[in-house]
């Protein structure tokens, strides 16, 4: 590690990156550069989350006869790009991906 500040985005995923350093570091959407909150908070807190029952989200192939399984879609509040998906049972916590530095 060098002492100089990283000048480029540090990706958490292809769709989400950390920009800036120290206390000023923010999550951004890599598609539009839109803000997704400070580096010390999960970026999903600042995304739009849609939680749709799987059979409604995906059509017949995803219709398993169950109603308690959901597809969560996390979208950029600026450009509406779909940043991440999760399958989940109701009430299960969001998955958290984070980058150290």
């Amino acid at each position: 590690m060098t002492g100089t500040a990283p000048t480029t985005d540090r990706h958490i995923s292809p769709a989400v990156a950390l920009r800036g350093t120290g206390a000023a570091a923010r999550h951004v959407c890599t598609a539009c550069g839109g803000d997704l909150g400070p580096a010390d908070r999960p970026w999903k807190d600042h995304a739009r989350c849609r939680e749709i029952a799987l059979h409604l989200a995906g059509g017949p192939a995803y219709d398993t006869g169950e109603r308690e399984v959901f597809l969560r879609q996390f979208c950029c509040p600026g450009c509406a790009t779909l940043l991440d998906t999760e399958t989940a049972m109701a009430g299960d916590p969001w998955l958290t991906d984070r980058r150290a530095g």
Partner: protein
Amino acid sequence: MDPMTFSIIRHRLFRIVDEAVITLKHVSGSAITNEGHDLMVSLYRADGSLLMGGVGFLHHLTSAAEACKAIIRRFDGDIGEGDVFLLNDPYTAALHTSDIYLVSPIHVEGRLVAWSACFVHVTDIGAVNPGGFAPQAPDIFSEGFSSPGLRLVRGGEICRDVLDTILNMVRSPEMVSLDLRSMIACNNVARDRMQALFRKYGAQTVDAACATLIEQSEQLFRARLRELPDGSWQSRQYLDVNGTTARVVLTMTKTDDRLVFDFTGSDPQSAFSINCTKWASLGGLFAPLFPLLCYDITWNEGVIRPVTMIAPEGSIVNCTRPAPVSVATVGAIQSVNNAACTTIGKMLAASDRYRDEATAVWHANHFAIFKFGRNQRGGYSIGILTETFAGAGGARSFADGVEIGGEIPNPISRMANVETVEASFPVRYLFRRRAIDSGGPGQYRGGTGGEMALVPHKAPDGGIDYVISGKGTRHPMSEGLAGGWPGAPNAYVWVHAPEGGDGAPVVASDGLAALEGDHQRVSWGVYPLRGRDALYVRWNGGGGWGDPVTRDPQAVADDVAAGLVSPGAALAIYGVALDGAGGPDAPGTERRRAAIRAERLEQEAAQ
């Protein structure tokens, strides 16, 4: 050491493993070993550490290392030249009882210098259900014979009493006998070739080369890890069995040149046999790690050293005796495979340099269906539906997943021809093909899974029975990456024919929908396939990559034309409208995609 000699010894070690695999397949001659490539051969150092892992079911590489170590502990001071030991107790090292390890010490001039180990999925192990997977087992005691270590061969002579006792406990003693003989032959080849290697180059040189090989893998793997970003990534898998659901939760943290896989948060062990022991979990996470992170590094102990696993005791990924585990390899272990594939994929995808090595989850959910019964020639047939090895590829940063393209933990596999199955079982396929909308949507689509339907045909008993250890019918398990969707889940449907027809169906061009009668979902237990009934199976597609509304509209139109994506899904998920000729309708697509984006923004930010 001299790089030339080292290169020669390294190459020879690879070939020794290859030759042993060939021997195993030759002598065994069974379909699961030869077609499914459900096997593993590897070499270990004198202390049991992994020296050279071959291509096979990769979750065995570390477990067999533990098997060597367990034998060393148990038989210390009594390990002779020409001995072969058997181990299949999951609470000692094995994955489940039917995957038997045979491990052989290799001596040169009286000194123990190395070990070889191999496994095959034996035809039967005497569990409550035939074939090894025992959905009806309440505990390990019902899952057949299991040994924490036993001497099968002493000084080159087979221990007849031991062998006969084992064969006395299984359903197909002749087949199991052949399975065991194939493993002995395999270990013999590995031992002979290793001894020749030691004799040619000297014990000191070969030992030094082995140590260097492990060090080199460690250095290379650590160097790769340092090139990857530090951070932590999560995955969650749901296993649904008989109305219950269990979670496998994984947080993978990468710091500098170390990786920690932490399963804290996973559910307590299940009453059903999908559990796995800690050795199985460890193998489960290494199975995707080897090909995803170490595709150009020799698979050995050096790769294992930088990795730590945390698995809470009493959980589904580290169950305690006597929890049943016979379905582990297609249960919790496979979920560990998937979760590790996702977290590793997320880490790779976060790296500009390694993004093209990331992949969404492949074939996430085996459907272990063993058919058994009297066949059309009057004999008795038992065997797995090999379509479970057909799999589906996960999407990548640069391409769609491979349709029905296999799986990561077992790089070499294939399914049998329809004609092969129809020749040996009294069944007839109505169709077998790629399953529409099964591939996880994304900018790059997950590879499609498949679907098929079977009816009894010329069966002397009117049909057959099957053991099914299915899960993944309620939850998609092949996670997507970077906004890609998961692949569609599995489905197993028993179609009860309506009263009063004549003969089983012959065609069903529209798939499951064309099959008349009551459709009953089944997933766990023993069921009949008789009369005019049908069994429908659909297996999961791979996970997708990236936002589906950014997929090239022409690619979506091509998928629709090829029958891989329905027009409904094209419009609803991909936002692609088609024109009269089946091509993408540009203005309609633009409108629909704008509407999808608007829908996404309708709700408030969630917190």
